[in-house]
């Protein structure tokens, strides 16, 4: 049961959140510019990082905000929760 320190609500169980995917994989600004192969890569291939990665999580049963956090997928340790979802 991951514990996430929501900047708006404080420490809450993972069951209040929905995982929203990797945060370092923005949707291409102009998909038409991409080759089919590059587009397929964006669509079908998730980063699936083994280690620390920035992720979006939605505090759906809380403040309803999207936050960014750093999680280690090897241990599920969580660090550095950012106030808002952003690509910063």
């Amino acid at each position: 049961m991951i514990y996430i320190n929501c900047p708006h609500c404080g420490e809450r169980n993972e069951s209040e959140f929905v995982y929203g995917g990797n945060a370092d994989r923005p949707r291409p600004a102009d998909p038409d510019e991409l080759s089919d192969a590059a587009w397929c890569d964006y669509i079908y291939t998730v980063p699936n990082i083994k280690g620390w990665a920035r992720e979006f999580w939605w505090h759906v049963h809380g403040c309803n905000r999207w936050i960014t956090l750093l999680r280690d997928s090897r241990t599920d340790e969580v660090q550095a929760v950012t106030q808002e979802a952003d690509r910063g």
Partner: protein
Amino acid sequence: MGRVDRSRPITFRFNGQTYSGFVGDTLASALLANGVMLVGRSIKYHRPRGIMSAGVEETNAIVQLLGDEDEPNVVATTLPLYQGLEASSVNGRPDSRFDARAINDVLHRFIPAGFYYKTFMWPDNRWDWYSRFIRRIAGWGTAPQKASGGRYEHRYHHCDVLVVGAGPAGLAATLAAGRAGARVLLVDNQTEAGGSVLGSSAMINSAPAMRWVESATTELAAMPEVVRLTEATAVGYYKQNFVTVLEQRPDRHWLRERLWKVRARRVVLATGAIERPLTFPDNDKPGVMLASAVTTYCFRYGVKPGRTAVVFTNNNRSYRHAIEIAEHGIHVAAIVDLRKSPDTGLCEEALARGIEVLRSSHVVSVKGSHRVTGVGVAIATDKSIREFHCDLLAVSGGWDPAVHLHSQSGGKPVYDESIASFIPGKSVQQERPAGACRGELRLAKALADGYAAGAEAAALCGHVGVPVESFDCPAEPCLGILPVWDVPTARKAARAFVDFNNDVTSKDIRLAVREGYRSVELVKRYTTAGMGLDQGKSSNVNVIGLIAEISATPPGTVGTTTYRPAYSPVSFGAMAGTDNGQLIFPWRRTPITDWFIANGGHLDETGALFRRPLYIAKPKETASDAIEREALAVRNAAGIYDSTPLGKISIKGPDAVKFLNRVYTNAWDKLPVGRCKFGYMLHDDGRLLDDGVTFRLSEEHYVMSTGSGVADIVLRHLERLLHCEWPDLEVYLTPVSDQFAVICVCGPQARLVMQQAGIDIDISREAFRFFDTGFCKVAGLDARLSRVTYTGELSFEIEVPSRNGLKLWKALMEAGADYGITPVGSDTSMLLRTEKGFIAAGLEGDGHANIHDVGMGWVVASDKGDFIGKRSTERDINAGGTRPQVVGLLPQDPTFVPPKGTPIIEPGETCESRESIGMVTIGFHSPALGYPIALAQLSDGRSRLGDTVTLYTGERTVSARVCEPVFLDPDGERMRS
């Protein structure tokens, strides 16, 4: 004597006999007090087994509770005795004294570990046949045959420090943390605090240890921030210091068990150490007992488990136990010590009490069948064998710190030579072991360690200033252990048990390693050692030691297996808690649900947990009759339908149009206020996500309707895009599905019904057009009226705040009475939309279709810039070719209604080819048309219009003509009327 309450006797039954015990007894101690040592049979060899331990590590004394408390696999050593308890042995047939299956023990040489992998294959993989017999003899107790209806609950708890274990170290830790002002939760699986000193003559600060325990618990009880739970076992240690604790019998009257979910800033693991048995021939006979268990029964329960004992050990600690046993009035014939030179002080102490000490010696034989009657001891110094009469063999192979929770927390236990066992390794969570759990077996040190751990944990939570405390106990020698993993024997047939619960012997371990199963994990899986009811609490280290010895590697290199929750078993009831019946997923209701229940609605759960009527039957009406009647009413008069379950999302903000343009396939710039429009929403890979109507209520305010089953998914999709992809857009989403009731009146008479109900705006064809939306009053209620349809008929959709939903429904029913208004269920609605060929993203889309597949390519605005799914939609692969496309089907047999899922094959093909070219997504008999119709996905279907295909039903084949997917009113005259 002991800590049982002799003023409160209890009667109980075991194997049909009535016995008596006292409050404070466990079932095991009461049985021992009544002279019952044989409590059951083992699982594989059906050997007689007795009580081996006095705690959670027990692997033999597994009983079945009977009567109202019917429960399998209950551990007698941890079950507090209660009035009327009724239990029986497990595995003994006809009973535990005479067990027919003990024949297995005679045949043991033919059924070693993993024997079943080598046989039961002949003839032709007949394991199925053999397994019928094997299954019958497997398993321990019997699953209850009726539900007992006990109550359970879960409770969350947050604290600074969780201390697991209320033995000396745990109590000291709690005292320190509590004195510092920390919020502490102390849990312990026993009925009272004290842990190891409950069953000993130990002294703390020059007084009996229990006196100190009592003063500690008194002090703790006065601390408002300290909570202490008894009979509460920490069973699971999960990520980020989330620990589950099973509290048993919290309240006899209304609650059977409570599962605590504790989130602690710091955890102190004072879980103690478990004595491990020695591995020697016949070490499983009733009467062979752990040395510490013998003293526990003496001191804690006031029971003498035997009259004459022999102590068999490899360490110094058992001398203390031997002396305590002797002091308790059990004759100790000898201490059989595997070591050459035990601590001289201890030897003298033993001798002073008349206990003979035999050095460099070991037990070679255990006499007796249902109970130990004597032992043979080989003495290395003069190579002689000596016989002792005894009815108790107290053994000690050393002490294993209870590292299970540490391992569950992610830690890797490491081998400690000084105790020849594993202690917790580096902490990976906010956790610290203390006392015996850390290998600190001496009382004074364990107390000091616990106190320090508590103070440290409190300080890490910001609570400092713990007063200094010192603990004074009589000096104890070090453990001085000589690990002997398999006591030597000359007898070839002798078997020494390593895992008693699964009947695994040291020979089995040797065989496994010999056969190449070298890793501890492979040995465990091949022999099943450590996989029994006790999850290897008493056997793991012996198995590891033995593997190490055989393969000549240090035990630390062999390593432990990973311990997993639960530390001890948890009832299903406690796991589920109150997630039961309606509470597991509460039903969602609309304001009309009760009306449907009262008026013949056939309710079903149809997505998003809503209970909705499939149809509303009149008395004695069949489902199909009801659906036909409802459908005809909509086509010929008027129907009324509860659309409330559709998802509704309010979309506000200056960039709302831009947002809609990006999430829908069509263009939204030109939609004026007071109009609405149909849209398709795609996944970015081009698949259909949802379809629905979005209404423009004001310049910057839209309301989107979604499918009821996908409302949550759509909201998440949109929220994610707004927050994570397009934070520059100023748009605000609010789910308002539950805030509004939506009722739809449809059919040729719908306009008259609306006027009859009292509507304050002009709803003529010209004044209120198809796809108009606007605010008005209906039946005196504030409402939003829209002209949208799911049936293809003239329709009015009225949205009111939920509180007015039923009022509106009743008013419309009353207004429509003269026009034949008929309530319509969702099955009927499905039929009506099929006649019109309206696509259901869930059914026709089936999770993989793109917008061209469902024939909706015309809803794509390719000139408006990017939208979600555009890039994928424009790829060649998505444009056509042999993709399944939605078509209509007209079965040529007018009596054949093709069911959902019917495969379509090429005409002339037989089903043997197993080649389908499509599938029926829905089929109905159309009451309006008088013949059957269906929608289907058909490979390259658009180019097959007019062709004939074959439907395969499993029994026969039926031809069907492929047609456009619209069967009624193709030009939409009715809905625009």
